């Protein structure tokens, strides 16, 4: 009887049956919190004398758009993301190309180069805080060893975003590098032999042999690094606390400040939807400008 019923299911129905548990799981895990956050963003929330919600419609969204802090945070976030993207991809690619060479003790070098990825953003924040700040910075040490005797503080207002970018790229680049390396190692070695016969230069070999094989991976990781950088928080919190002043205050830091310092949860939730929108727009832009071409090719 049961067998007969099972046979009556169409392929589509059977597929739905199979994915049903994960759909329910996703609903509970994603849709409910997202819906709750959306509800929060339409309210002013107070916790004193019990939780109170006052429906304010789109007021939080409007207020954010008129806040100079928000626009400052957008600028900082973009600067941080673009710089992180460029630096991470460049370091990752350089790592992959280097590790693909027939080096002695390659396994050990590979293990060492993946280490930064294994370090938590919290620890990275502390490490780079000491490395880049004034009296303890390695540049200050260098300056004194060269007799210039000048304190170099990269955590100052003008350079703090670049300082934060350095740590972020250091943390993310090994991941990019290893996926690119895996990709490069699948390229048939015959192609390189042919390129050698054709007397192609190193750059030409990269352009005509290596690049076509890794361009799709590059696109995928450009997306991943963009999203990770847009939503980076713990690392920035530890290294700079959004400062000095608000010089490194990204949107994520503003969300934290509004939601968990000022306990303005409605406003914080609305801010998080602006961040979500920004992530969506940026990744869509990447797809339109770059991804579609990759898929077509």
């Amino acid at each position: 009887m049961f067998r007969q019923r099972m046979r009556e299911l169409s392929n589509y129905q059977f597929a739905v049956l199979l994915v049903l548990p994960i759909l329910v799981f996703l609903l509970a895990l994603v849709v409910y919190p997202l819906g709750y956050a959306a509800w929060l963003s339409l309210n002013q929330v107070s916790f004193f004398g019990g939780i109170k919600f006052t429906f304010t419609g789109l007021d939080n969204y409007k207020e954010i758009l008129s806040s100079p802090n928000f626009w400052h945070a957008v600028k900082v976030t973009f600067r941080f993301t673009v710089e992180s993207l460029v630096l991470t991809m460049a370091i990752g690619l350089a790592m992959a190309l280097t590790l693909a060479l027939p080096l002695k003790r390659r396994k050990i070098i590979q293990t060492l180069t993946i280490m930064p990825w294994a370090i938590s953003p919290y620890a990275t924040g502390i490490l780079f805080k000491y490395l880049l700040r004034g009296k303890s910075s390695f540049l200050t040490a260098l300056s004194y060893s060269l007799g210039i005797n000048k304190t170099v503080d990269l955590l100052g207002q003008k350079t703090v975003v670049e300082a934060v970018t350095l740590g972020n790229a250091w943390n993310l680049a090994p991941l990019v590098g290893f996926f690119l390396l895996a990709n490069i190692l699948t390229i048939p070695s015959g192609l390189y032999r042919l390129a050698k016969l054709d007397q192609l230069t190193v750059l030409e070999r990269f352009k005509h042999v290596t690049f076509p094989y890794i361009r799709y991976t590059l696109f995928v990781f450009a997306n991943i690094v963009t999203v990770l950088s847009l939503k980076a928080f713990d690392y920035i919190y530890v290294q700079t606390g959004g400062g000095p002043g608000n010089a490194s205050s990204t949107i994520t830091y503003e969300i934290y400040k509004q939601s968990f310092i000022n306990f303005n949860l409605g406003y914080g939730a609305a801010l998080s939807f602006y961040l979500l929108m920004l992530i969506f727009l940026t990744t869509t832009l990447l797809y339109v400008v770059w991804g579609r071409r990759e898929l077509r090719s």
Partner: protein
Amino acid sequence: MMRKVALLSLACILLIATFSPGVLAAVDFEARSGQTVRFQGWQFATDVVLDTVRRYNETMGGNVEYNTIAGDYSAIMEQKFIAGDAPDILYGHVYDAVRYFDGGWIEAIDSLPNADEILADLIPSVAEAWTYKGKVLGLPYFTSVIGILVTNLDRMEECGLTEADYPKTWDEFYELIHALHEQGVENPYLPAWYSEQWGIGWSFLAEVLNRGGVTADPETHEPRLTADGPGGDTLRAWKRLWNEGVVDKEVLSYRETDHIEAWESGRYLFASHMAYNIRRSNDPKFSQVAGRTGFVPYQGQPWGILDVGLYLITKKDRDPDFQHDVEAFFSWYGFKNEEGRAYVAERWLQDFMLFSGYQSVMSGEIALEAIRSSLANPDDVDKMIELYENASYPKGVFHVTWSPEFQSFLREELQSFLLNDKPVEQTIEAINSEIARLNKVYGIN
């Protein structure tokens, strides 16, 4: 005859026992419920706390579980309250306690069985700092003064300075610093402008208070800063320090630990510091200015503000036995143990020079010895006590629900004032506006 002596001795023993503090306490510290009492605090000397908790659990059959919170303590603890996940006993600053009390999350100490005895032992002027709406909000963890001026005695000698040159006011201090800077003295001053809630913001609140001003009215909480008053004077003095390159620009990216390490490197001549850190700075295990960290004494103008940490008890529906367990540990840890000794308070004092809020602790030889052994010059004990006695706190800002939010704003605003060379008038106006806005949000006045 022998019988008479024996009876007399017994009577004496009974009399002493009856009036000794241990018996007066009349608190049964033994745990009854078998349930776990959750105790949470910020990360400071966790080994000492763990050891003390273990001692309680072993001697009183308690089941107290202690853990710490890393990061923004006030904010994380408030999230716990909101989520219904607050511990039974916790640490808090005065302004945290005020906010939690207004949120209906903590209880005042009146309900403790030995409340009268505790209240009688509190130092009145200090206890006033955590008395809010007529209620004493917690038991004293420590009292200290943040924002006193410490000096590197070796560097003072190098600069030809003696105790007679110690400034009496902030204005005198800044004149001295500028004069030294013009003479080419390097690193004359390390201000406590670090990026913590109690960093640059507290430095401002302290200096305004020391200059005789108030940031917000102590009763109505209305903004009280003016550009031509102590607030404006403070900002003008800071702007000059910053713009003339007297202080390192990197101080704004420091955390408290970085500030302490910077002082202990021995580079600086003066620093704005926490009083209790003098002990650490004079300890060769940590510091390169060990035994050479002095301080500027009180000479008519107070230095810094009173910093008070409290043990707080949360308001929860507990069965009577469990409520007893929570209160028993609270009292044992925050006041006196089964022997009638303020064991924990004495330990904080001896190990860290954290002053206690109890008269019985501060009037004892232990206190004198703890202070004496912490100072570069043991004869300065009276001067240190005088600093404490003259320190006050910004009631208008600390005794109000919005205090943590305001402190977060103040930190950012003051850093921005320095970094972006904002006009003094604009910054004073921004601070006043924020206070007015917060009063409106919280329905104050």
